[in-house]
């Protein structure tokens, strides 16, 4: 297995598997967040369930965190290896003549997503873990009501944060516009010129980030 992970194709495949896992997670995250647009109660009860279910908290959450770490660490490992594969660069290099900006700059969109994940952890994950496991309050309540919806609404009040969220999701969209089909191609499914995979990829890569942007703008606008 360590041999597999040090081979170029092994790395590619592990990169793609972690990415597909992240895309499934993101879809699930989106569906839950979207409930906040039409039902405060539903959003609260799902959040409470996700935040207190043993399987989700102590099995799925660590797997997710490891998945994210694996993906970005491997992303940087590959980027360094790739840069080192050309000792002397070209004086003139016309990348746009034969490939998309997105495909050539996965590390830039990826780094922006990483920064966003940092902010997101600071905004939601650290307070959540502090409340539950340090202060020991697993009731999910504040002043007799569930706190999740309130916390969400509160976060989307400052304009700077809403703008930052929207920008991050645009970069995520760019990451996925190339990444979706690329992940299947890496796994051995000829995807880069496959219309069906490309179309599903475009729907996912534009739809999901746009959905998250909509949720942020919605709460900013109505509260």
């Amino acid at each position: 297995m360590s041999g597999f992970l040090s081979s170029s194709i092994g790395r590619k495949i592990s990169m793609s598997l972690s990415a597909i896992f992240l895309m499934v997670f993101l879809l699930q995250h989106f569906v839950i967040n979207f409930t906040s647009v039409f039902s405060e109660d539903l959003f609260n009860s799902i959040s409470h369930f996700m935040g207190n279910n043993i399987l989700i908290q102590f099995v799925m959450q660590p797997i997710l965190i490891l998945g994210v770490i694996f993906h970005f660490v491997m992303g940087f490992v590959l980027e360094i290896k790739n840069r080192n594969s050309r000792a002397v660069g070209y004086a003139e290099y016309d990348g746009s003549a034969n490939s998309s900006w997105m495909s050539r700059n996965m590390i830039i969109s990826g780094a922006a997503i990483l920064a966003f994940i940092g902010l997101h952890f600071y905004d939601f994950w650290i307070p959540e873990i502090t409340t539950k496991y340090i202060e020991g309050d697993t009731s999910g309540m504040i002043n007799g009501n569930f706190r999740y919806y309130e916390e969400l609404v509160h976060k989307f009040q400052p304009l700077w944060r809403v703008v930052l969220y929207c920008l991050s999701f645009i970069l995520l969209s760019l990451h996925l516009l190339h990444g979706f089909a690329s992940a299947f191609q890496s796994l051995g499914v000829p995807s880069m010129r496959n219309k069906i995979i490309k179309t599903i990829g475009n729907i996912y890569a534009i739809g999901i980030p746009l959905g998250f942007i909509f949720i942020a703008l919605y709460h900013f606008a109505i509260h």
Partner: protein
Amino acid sequence: MNLTLKIWRQKSSKDKGGFVEYKIADISEHMSFLEMMDVLNEELITKGEEPVVFDHDCREGICGSCSMFINGEAHGPDRGVTTCQLHMRKFKDGDKITIEPFRAKAFPVIKDLMVDRSSFDRIQQAGGFISVNTSGNTTDANAILIPKEDADLAMDAATCIGCGACVATCKNSSAMLFVGAKVSQYALLPQGKVEGKERVKNMVAQMDLEGFGNCTNTGACEVECPKGISLDNIARMNRNYVGSIFGS
């Protein structure tokens, strides 16, 4: 037409190298790019200067030796051609043309525009063949039925001329299009399937050893490949590689 050429000159693999500009006049638009280079070299020789060293052999797009990175693209601005098939009509009078060697750690510069692509040979030697007992009892290849579709795909993969444009053009200097083509041309045929698992494992191991980068599926290689080798070959190689590691 009159042109300014900005050409990479480097005395040896040890030399640091740098660009030198040359003016060249009265180039016919019907000339091939290499013929234009010949004219330049004639002038340099007449002036007692060293001609520009570049690889070339067949001059008809089949040997793959004419490696040049022209105005930011492998084999220049045209599609589906090698440098020897590139015509001067793709340029305009007064143009400044930048000519660099193919760049990759696994393709070190020998002199000027000539690079050492023996890393490709070593990848081939690691598995790009079939072992046949030639002691007189071979089966006629035509006795084995092969679906037309497979034969066509194998033939398409086999058109790779090992020019290295895929590596030169890839932002990661990845050789996966070349290796994907070489793996596929055997993997698709019954004669090649026999040693399929060992082949893909060994060729990929050699590719990694040579210091080529990793594929990000940008697709630049496919666009610049003079033979139109498809990215599907990379997917096939990945599939076969996983099969060779985890398959029974």
